[in-house]
């Protein structure tokens, strides 16, 4: 307790006193000495404290500039505060409390069980960094969670948790943890049942890792050998497959590396190889039945993804290399760019007179070596042409004359043509599509910078799915988003202190949601109007909603170049395409399956379960007289929603290209796009969730 108080007093002093005035440093020195004394036994803490005292000593002897010293000491103290707070969770008391709660809990009292779960998370934390007790606590927590989800019996689970608690109490008194606890966990299905069965894939992984390392060494000596790169990629892919579900973090790591290798790369620099070596080293730490720690994986993945984005050398980097720019100047320019994101770095540097036009041109030339710039309009035409090629091919395939062809060689050649066309299409798409996440990160920097310049603080959180957008739309989207952020920060009546940006990839469109605690945004403000105008060009839409807790803005950007796996269904002669990933089953209802609810509503009873119905006949097209049992039910399950779509007929699965619809069709609820069908007619692509949105 004393320690925590002293640290916060020291932090306060550090913020208030004038570091250039020697007498004012005295009290701080005293506090730091006190902290060193109080942290005596805890080596990690006391080392930091000693370092901080050293820094202050040096500042007093004028060996370090006072402002620098203040910064270092302040940060160090904050770190100490964080660490000491962690220290103070006492596992003994916590354990006792939890054991008592567990003893008195009723098996169906979910709120009480929830409290225990939270306590167990804290308990696991308090044992850190001791892996063994921590793992046991987490196993016990898993047991309780499984019982809540009714996957194991509650009594069994509680008994197991009790045993773990007893074991841990013993452990705190210095007894070793009994291996029988793990055995029990295995019996409860918390750990893989048969060790032997598990060993095989892990062994495979270990030997694969070794081979991967060898390949990497070979690449180091011949970095241009593309065959070796392919091998490396295949190895990482295989490892990620083996690790699937066993070690999600490690799997994620392998995936991100293999993804980097698949982005068309022509050889690597030695620093790239270092990143791969980092990943391999981290994977070596993986132990059987465990996973890698999230922060470490995150760190390496960050490095890997930086490599992906920086394969083209950045302008700033080049200018530094060519020694025409100083690092400080570059940093300064970056800071300015945060506030003026529409300006290019080169422009800012020129304006400030940090580089000459000649320098800039030379650097830009180097930057684009090996690249060709193409007019975007030509690229769009190319995509359209390829799109037509694909459609034409589908048309030919369903032509009766074609169906009658029996010439095997012709058919094979046609298949080959099909493969090439679809490859070509993928290629063209990859030229047009650009990943968006880096842009969202830039937006968050922009918002942060803007808030700072307005003298405010804002807590920004990003929840991003990987999304891609046509390159030519990216700039406009960024303009839209910066205007919205500016409107939120500059014009809200009650300024926001938090902002959450959620980006989701949906069928046929990208959904961007901004949620903030700021209130009173005028939806007719100039900035919003500008954003809306820009959005029109993107064919997107913006919805602003004032909520109790703040404001929510929802942006939708339609995608035009997506291929989805769809279920083809026909309703009243019209083709519908339903994304295959949300289809649970297809069911042929009988008369006795139909249940009538109040009013005219009907539901389907499938294996005793009641499922709501949406009849596409009455919903999007005019009603017809067909009864439910004359139709086919496609059972949809997605994001907590479940219902059955009724259609006339289901005609199998197919990959379809999503096309944007004209204005007339865009208004239909649930329809997010269209696609040209094999017979030349337009199929409507449904986003089933959309069908549920507020009627009328």
């Amino acid at each position: 307790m004393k320690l925590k108080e002293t640290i916060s007093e020291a932090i306060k002093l550090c913020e208030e006193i004038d570091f250039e005035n020697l007498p004012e440093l005295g009290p701080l020195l005293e506090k730091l000495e006190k902290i060193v004394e109080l942290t005596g036994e805890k080596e990690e803490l006391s080392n930091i404290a000693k370092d901080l005292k050293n820094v202050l000593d040096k500042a007093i002897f004028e060996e370090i500039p006072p402002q620098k010293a203040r910064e270092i000491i302040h940060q160090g103290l904050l770190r100490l505060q964080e660490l000491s707070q962690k220290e103070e969770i006492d596992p003994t008391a916590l354990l006792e409390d939890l054991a008592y709660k567990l003893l008195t809990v009723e098996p169906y009292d979910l709120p009480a069980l929830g409290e225990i779960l939270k306590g167990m998370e804290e308990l696991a934390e308090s044992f850190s960094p001791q892996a063994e007790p921590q793992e046991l606590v987490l196993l016990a927590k898993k047991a309780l969670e499984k019982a809540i989800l009714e996957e194991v019996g509650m009594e069994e689970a509680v008994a197991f948790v009790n045993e773990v608690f007893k074991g841990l109490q013993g452990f705190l008194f210095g007894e070793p943890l009994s291996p029988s606890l793990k055995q029990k966990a295995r019996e409860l299905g918390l750990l893989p049942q048969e060790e032997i069965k598990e060993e095989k894939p892990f062994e495979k992984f270990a030997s694969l890792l070794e081979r991967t390392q060898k390949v990497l060494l070979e690449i180091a000596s011949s970095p241009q050998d593309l065959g070796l790169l392919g091998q490396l990629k295949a190895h990482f892919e295989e490892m990620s497959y083996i690790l699937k579900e066993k070690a999600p973090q490690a799997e994620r790591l392998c995936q991100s590396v293999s993804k980097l290798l698949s982005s068309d790369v022509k050889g690597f620099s030695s620093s790239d190889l270092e990143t791969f070596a980092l990943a391999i080293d981290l994977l070596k730490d993986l132990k059987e039945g465990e996973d890698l720690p999230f922060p470490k994986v995150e760190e390496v993945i960050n490095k890997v993804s930086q490599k992906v984005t920086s394969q083209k050398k950045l302008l700033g980097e080049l200018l530094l290399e060519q020694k025409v720019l100083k690092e400080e100047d570059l940093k300064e320019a970056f800071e300015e760019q945060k506030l003026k994101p529409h300006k290019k770095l080169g422009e800012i540097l020129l304006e400030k007179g940090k580089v000459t036009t000649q320098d800039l041109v030379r650097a830009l030339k180097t930057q684009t070596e090996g690249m060709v710039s193409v007019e975007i309009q030509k690229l769009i035409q190319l995509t359209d042409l390829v799109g037509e090629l694909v459609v034409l091919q589908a048309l030919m395939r369903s032509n009766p004359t074609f169906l009658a062809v029996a010439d095997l060689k012709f058919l094979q050649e046609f298949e080959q043509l099909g493969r090439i066309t679809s490859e070509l299409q993928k290629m063209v798409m990859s030229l047009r599509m650009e990943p968006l996440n880096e842009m969202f990160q830039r937006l968050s920097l922009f918002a942060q910078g803007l808030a700072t310049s307005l003298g405010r603080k804002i807590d920004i959180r990003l929840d991003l799915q990987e999304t891609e957008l046509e390159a030519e739309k990216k700039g406009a989207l960024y303009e839209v988003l910066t205007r919205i952020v500016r409107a939120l920060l500059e014009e809200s009546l009650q300024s926001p202190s938090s902002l959450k940006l959620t980006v989701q990839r949906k069928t046929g469109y990208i959904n961007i949601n901004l949620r903030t605690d700021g209130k009173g945004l005028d939806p007719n403000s100039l900035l919003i109007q500008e954003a809306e105008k820009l959005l029109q060009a993107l064919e997107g839409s913006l919805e602003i909603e004032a909520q109790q807790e703040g404001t929510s803005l929802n942006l939708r950007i339609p995608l035009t170049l997506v291929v989805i796996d769809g279920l083809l269904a026909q309703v009243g002669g019209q083709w519908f395409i339903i994304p295959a990933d949300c289809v649970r089953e297809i069911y042929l209802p009988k008369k006795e399956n139909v249940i009538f609810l109040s009013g005219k509503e009907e539901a389907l009873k499938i294996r005793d379960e009641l499922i709501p119905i949406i009849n596409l006949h009455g919903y999007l097209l005019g009603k017809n007289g067909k009864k439910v049992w004359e139709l086919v039910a496609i059972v949809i399950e997605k994001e907590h929603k479940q219902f059955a779509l009724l259609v006339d007929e289901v005609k199998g699965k197919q990959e379809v290209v999503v096309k944007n619809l004209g204005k007339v069709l865009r208004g239909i609820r649930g329809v997010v796009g269209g696609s040209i069908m094999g017979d030349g007619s337009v199929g409507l692509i449904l986003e089933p969730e959309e069908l549920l949105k507020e009627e009328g």
Partner: protein
Amino acid sequence: MRILVVDDFPTMRAITKKILKDLGFKEILEAENGEEALKILKSERIDLVISDWNMPKMDGLTLLKNIRSDPELKDTLVMMVTAEAEKQKVLEAVKLGVNGYVVKPFTPETLEEKIKKVIAQKEKGPAK
């Protein structure tokens, strides 16, 4: 027993209502989303809320948070309805103090059993 059914999908509300009526519950109210549910909760006495997860305006989890943090509502019983594939998310709700959950699609028997458990638990009173 006054029950509030919260779901943005009218047919799903109708199904739940029918099952509840068949089980003998008479007073059943409906809300389209969390926000509407909160309004009703503040003006009427409600004993049990049965809420869907994903809804526009305010989702089920936020509704639960709001109920638990409101001193006047915090003792209201709350049950969440979830789809099998999203079952893991139940644990989040449990940590926030949900009283029960039911997996969609449910049979009348399952819903009855779950509601009975929740009510029985309430009568016993929480463990101190």
